């Protein structure tokens, strides 16, 4: 479903060139949940931005369902992103001036789904993440866990093939993370949605199908249990 081939991305800081991705390769099947781990500054978020079409690589390609998104021009990338991809962020990134239900409905509205149909779908989605009673609340009145559940609902409401999650538990305590992560994973599995999660959280990595480590600009497959062994060492 998702094929990454020879992906390179440099950043310039004055005269110095910093290569974040240096020929990264990976393949992820439909419905698979994959964690990407790595040290701070290793390029995990950059990778996610490239997969989501927010940023462009210097070389290499990304194909989603056979379509090479790195070859698309900006407007087409935007349209592709809003139809086929959902995002979940560490800091939730909800719109503070919209209510809970409106935040979710925004993803539908951008895809041309409006009116009662859109409202019903966003309400159903919020019910699935356990927030049926907070539809009209302002997002700044919610707890961190609730906000992240709204973000998950927003990422899934338009039924994308791919959800990209950037440190979804990074801003939550352990207990809340233990509630939120299963919601994301189970909803993605129910819908056969491919999930790529950038994380530092071992619990997250333990619950996904595969784990990739981003090291020296390349993606390395970690066998099951390797993460636990390395951290215990």
């Amino acid at each position, binding site marked *: 479903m998702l094929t990454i081939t020879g992906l390179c991305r440099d950043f310039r800081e004055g005269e110095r060139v910093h290569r974040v991705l240096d020929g990264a390769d990976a393949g992820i099947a439909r419905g698979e949940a994959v964690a990407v781990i790595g040290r701070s500054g290793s390029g995990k978020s950059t990778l996610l*931005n490239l997969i*989501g079409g*927010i*940023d462009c690589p210097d070389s290499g390609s990304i194909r989603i369902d056979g379509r090479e998104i790195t070859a698309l021009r*900006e*407007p087409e990338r*935007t*349209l592709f*992103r*809003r*139809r086929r991809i959902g*995002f979940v*962020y560490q800091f939730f*990134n*909800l*719109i*503070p*001036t*919209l209510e809970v239900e*409106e935040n979710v*409905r*925004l*993803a539908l*509205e*951008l*895809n041309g789904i409006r009116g009662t149909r859109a409202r019903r779908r966003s309400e159903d989605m919020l019910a699935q993440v356990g927030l049926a009673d907070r539809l009209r609340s302002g997002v700044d009145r919610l707890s961190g866990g609730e906000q992240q559940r709204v973000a998950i609902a*927003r990422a899934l409401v338009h039924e994308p093939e791919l959800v990209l999650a950037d440190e979804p538990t990074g801003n939550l305590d352990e207990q809340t993370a233990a509630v939120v992560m299963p919601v994301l994973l189970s909803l993605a599995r129910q819908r056969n949605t491919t999930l790529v999660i950038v994380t530092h959280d071992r619990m997250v990595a333990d619950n996904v199908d595969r784990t990739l480590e981003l090291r020296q600009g390349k993606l390395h497959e970690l066998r099951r249990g390797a993460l636990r062994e390395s951290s215990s060492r």
Partner: protein
Amino acid sequence: MSLLSAASLRHLLRHPAQLLLALLGLALGVATIVSVDIATASSRRAFELSMDAVNGPATHQIIAGPQGVDEQVYARLRTTGNIPLAPVVEGYVTIGDRSMLLVGVDPFAGVGLSGAADGPKRPDPAGWLIRPGAVVLSSTTARQLGLSVGRSFNLTVAGSERRATLVEELRGQHAGYDTVLFTDIAQAQEWLGSVGRLSRIEVHLPAGRPGDAAAARLRGSLPPGLQLVATRGRARESLDMTAAFTTNLQAMSLLALLVSTLLIYGSVSFAVVQRRRIIGIVRALGATRGDVGRIVLLEAAILGLIGAGCGVVAGILIAHALIGLVSRTINDLYFVVAVKDTALPTWTIAKALSVGIGTALVAALLPAIEVTNSPPQLGLRRSVLEMRAVHAARRLAVVSFFLAIGAGLIIFAWTRSLLAGFIALFLLLLSVAAITPAVLRALAQLAARLVGRSSPIIRLALADIAASLSRTAVAVAALGMAIAAMIGVSIMVESFRESLREWLTRTMRADVYVTAPGPGAGRPERRLDPQVIEALVAVPGVVDYSLSRRVSVELPDGPVSLDALKPAHASFAAVPLTSPNPQRTWKDFARGDIIVSEPLAWRLQLSQGDLLTLNTAIGPRSLRIAGIYRDYGNDRGNILMSLARYRGLWHDEGTTGMGLYLAPGSALEASLAALQAAVHGRQALLMRSNRDLRDLSMSIFERTFVITRVLYWLAAGVAAIGLVSALLAWELERGREMAILRALGLTPRGAALLIETQTGFMGLVALLAAIPAGLLTAVVLVDVINRRAFGWRIDLHLTAEQFSNALLLALAAALAAGLYPAWRSARVPIGTDMRDE
């Protein structure tokens, strides 16, 4: 409403103070335009109505010079042709302290003419011409003067009292009739001292070819010295006299709008910057560049519409104050007009709304382009944003250079165009705005380095300004531009005042000036009784005197004033000739040549030695220009001619005024009393000492510039509000940073000092950028705008006061901007701001 629009609207509503200040800036800019439009349109409308009332349905007029039309000509034309004609005698009179236009009409001819077409009807005087002193007034004016039908009252014509009786009130007529007093033609001739002469003959010609043919025939049958002119064209010529004056007012109002454009830019770009993160989120969710750009522009358009709406309302309110100032200036300088009603032209509202929305859209265009071109990354790093602002500041410094060069080129390429002058001026002001960000950054960095060792807080405050250029530069640029304009206008007004003062000192040599009182300069009915002149000259202590006749004569492009002089010995040195050989000029003048003022020479592109053709009573005569003189009395221009030559050309023996020279050592008060006594009971005269007349001239000058001052304070007010708004928003945005400093141990007093240092420094930088720009603006205003609009040559005068107002404004606005954030940082618990993030 889409959720994107809803989110955007709710953001604005969550920041009401910011929204209010942005709206206030735009509303004031639009209000200035609306008020100037209303004030000028109302004066224009009042003038047109009074013309309408006086001219009736006439399509053309037969006119002559100051001597008027011989009534025999009328009699001949009436008997030989079948064109509807009506004789009119008119002049200004006063009732109490109110100026009225006395119009004498022929009962028989007037009725015939009135019936000739649809349009305003004159009263039918047939029923009341037999009563001596009979007059007709509008019922409104009669009520205001406390008059009723049958009641007698006094009116004054050039200082002489006349007895009149109100015999009829006009009801249901438009406001133009409120300034007109109708009487029988013979009565008007007697009162105005023009027996046997008419002011003009009104003609009603059919439209189209038959009318043109009749006009050609009529023109051919007129004796020398008489002209047939279209009524509308003549009214337009009178209105055109005020063109330069109204253009200047409009330019001042545009300046206020230009300042508010920058402020709207500041507000919109700030609102965009504040929402950069939200915009990043919606872009990541799939909103296209178009979606986001549309939202920014839609927001600006709504802001523009509301601001313009408020501006129209405020403009109407300001206009009520401005109308008085504008009509008073028109009365002082051009013609008598009484504005009763305000005219709010529909196009003014349409213009205001489109200008408001257009301004907001133009201002929002750059932020919209910027936001649509930004990659949809969340929370674009502040450092990247500031780096962009630094690059933009460098580019703008280059743009500023080219704008200034462009302004210079425009001035030199179009040497006479007033519009080109204004475009150059606006380019110059924009150039100031464009250089300001680079200046602000450089000075802030320099100051931070200089004072850094002594106080780390001050260093932090100054370094922050340089590091937050994206927020601070626009506000400072807007203030700098407004201050530059303010300094420029101040210097121009002061230079004009000084030049006028010097000119008055030089030109007014006589000890006492005597004129026949009455409204309107150049009115033929304002004449001194010959016996009064003899009596005044015979008063002991009078050693010399000059005589003058001020009239209005016709040039192809409209009327121009002419001063016919019989100079006293001292008068020769009083006329500031610009020609190199004054003796020769005066010799030619005595022989019959004329001297023209600088404004007339500029307007008609005349030089010494050229010929100027005047329509005299004995037909057109080309007169040689012996010299050019400096004159600030009249922006349309003035002609000087010897009194003897004038009398030969126009057969007018009248004298409008005289200058009396007293023996050295004479007591002025005693001499004035002796002069008053000599004419007592003959004619009420305006008798003013040299000093009084100089003071009066200066007070008229001050009145003329009151409007300019009101408008530039409005522009400055807009800029001050903008600065307060932008800096307030910036300081509030930095609430968390301030909270961290407070948590680290910065005292409330230290926080207040830090904030006030920042805003005060920005005010100072705006002032520093504005001082050289203000000087340049003054040079353009004095040497380009004034020269092109009025033909005046003014010497530049610089005083400290011209800069002190600007300093006051800059510092007051800057310090006021810091007050609330300073208070807030001291009062709000530190934890609140730290949690807010």
